[in-house]
């Protein structure tokens, strides 16, 4: 599976209720260290109920300019949330199903792009 194909895939909870679509995948770089960079590890997916288009970098809270673009872009992704890889039960071609009792984290990142 190519990660890019996952973008836009519908996401359901374990009861089959539609939650949104995959808008982004987040990685942490904490795998086996190499000369330039350590291996990346998939931390989880961002699910957005209104649009699976790019956040254009405005998932970082520190970005506030130019008015009113950040407001518009965040409004377009209102209700979006982040789920950890551990909370994903099935990762299929046509849909993603979350485990019962999954935790929905805020998709926002602080100034340095960390959680």
């Amino acid at each position: 599976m190519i990660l890019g194909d996952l973008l836009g895939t519908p996401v359901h909870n374990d009861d089959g209720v539609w939650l949104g679509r995959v808008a982004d995948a987040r990685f942490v770089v904490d795998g086996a260290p190499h000369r330039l960079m350590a291996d990346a590890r998939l931390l989880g997916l961002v699910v957005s109920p209104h649009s699976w288009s790019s956040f254009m970098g405005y998932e970082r809270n520190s970005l506030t300019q130019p008015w009113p673009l950040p407001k518009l872009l965040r409004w377009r992704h209102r209700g979006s949330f982040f789920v950890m890889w551990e909370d994903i039960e099935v990762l299929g071609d046509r849909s993603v199903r979350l485990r019962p009792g999954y935790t929905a984290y805020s998709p926002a990142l602080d100034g340095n792009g960390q959680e």
Partner: protein
Amino acid sequence: MKRLLGVALGILTAIGGFVDIGDLVTNAVVGSRFGLSLIWVVAVGVVGICVFANMSGRVAAASGRATFEVIRERLGPRAGLANLSASFLINLMTVTAEIGGIALALQLASSVNYLLWIPLAAVAVWLVIWRVKFSIMENVTGLLGLTLIVFAVALFLLKPDWGTLASQAIPAVPAEETGATYWYFAIALFGAAMTPYEVFFFSSGAVEEGWKIKDLIQSRINVLVGFPLGGLLSVAIAGCAAVVLLPAGISVTSLSQVILPVAEGAGKLGLAVVLLGIVAATFGAALETTLSSGYTLAQFFGWSWGKFRAPAKAARFHVSMIICLLVGIAVLATGVDPVLVTEYSVVFSAVALPLTYLPILIVANDPQYMGKHVNGRGVNVVAMVYLVVILVASLAAIPLMIVTGAGA
């Protein structure tokens, strides 16, 4: 002293490099049909390209990334590819128009059919891209393009009634034109002044020349002085057409009509100079657009690019430019009128403008790319006003093209 010379040279090449086949044709068409009543659009376009070029130059200097590297990073591969396709096709159309422009100007100089000049022009463009140093290429075509000042000289020699000419400069739809054609040509003129390739080229050129933050002051002076003066050249082209062609009821459909007022005002010598100027301006723009097509592709796909690398080290970059030139030749070989290609290319440039403008605006506000060189408040206010203007022009262009039958 050396610094002063550098600034002067930069300004002069920015003036000479501002005008291309799109500006020549569109300004003359507009002048011959609308007089100076659309001249305000040139001012709007010049301020816009200053804002845009200033932002993309700053992004390139601060982050070391050119336009399409930024677009790829910000939009992701899919939206980025859609963006690339549209921008690239319109740029290819502009390449075709510029090569056609060189050939038409050479036809006027030599009486040899322009179709025979097309392969020669394209090979010359390729040779320069292949062999000539970036700075020499820029400076020579820019300085020779300055000879287009002959349009301003001719305007004075034509001794127009300046009062009447000035009174034409008030925005108003002429009696024989409709509101739709007026706004269609407003968009065309805006697209001609704010062609996207100028920005691909400007930001990639900044990377080619290895700009650092300290070079930004010079580039800002080049843009803020050079482009408005280049805009004045555009106004002179429209003015010549308004003085000679509008009263005679000639609406411009060919390059020979564009230079007719110069021949009338400045005689044979003027004619020789204007032909030199048009060849230089279109040749310079052909180089810039061809390079831009290579830049956009290479930056998106992550190929090594740039004239500062030997062609063997940037093989895909060079091959893609050769293919673009061949496509341009093939399109022109069908006998399609290069002036018509130009008229469409400026309108489609306006359509595609938001695709590159918005990502640059966003990244210019991102401290992770820009450090402390993010847009200031004042720049952002102007930039947001222009975002609205650009979006409106982009959305209105195709409906207006259909309603007016492409301005017929």
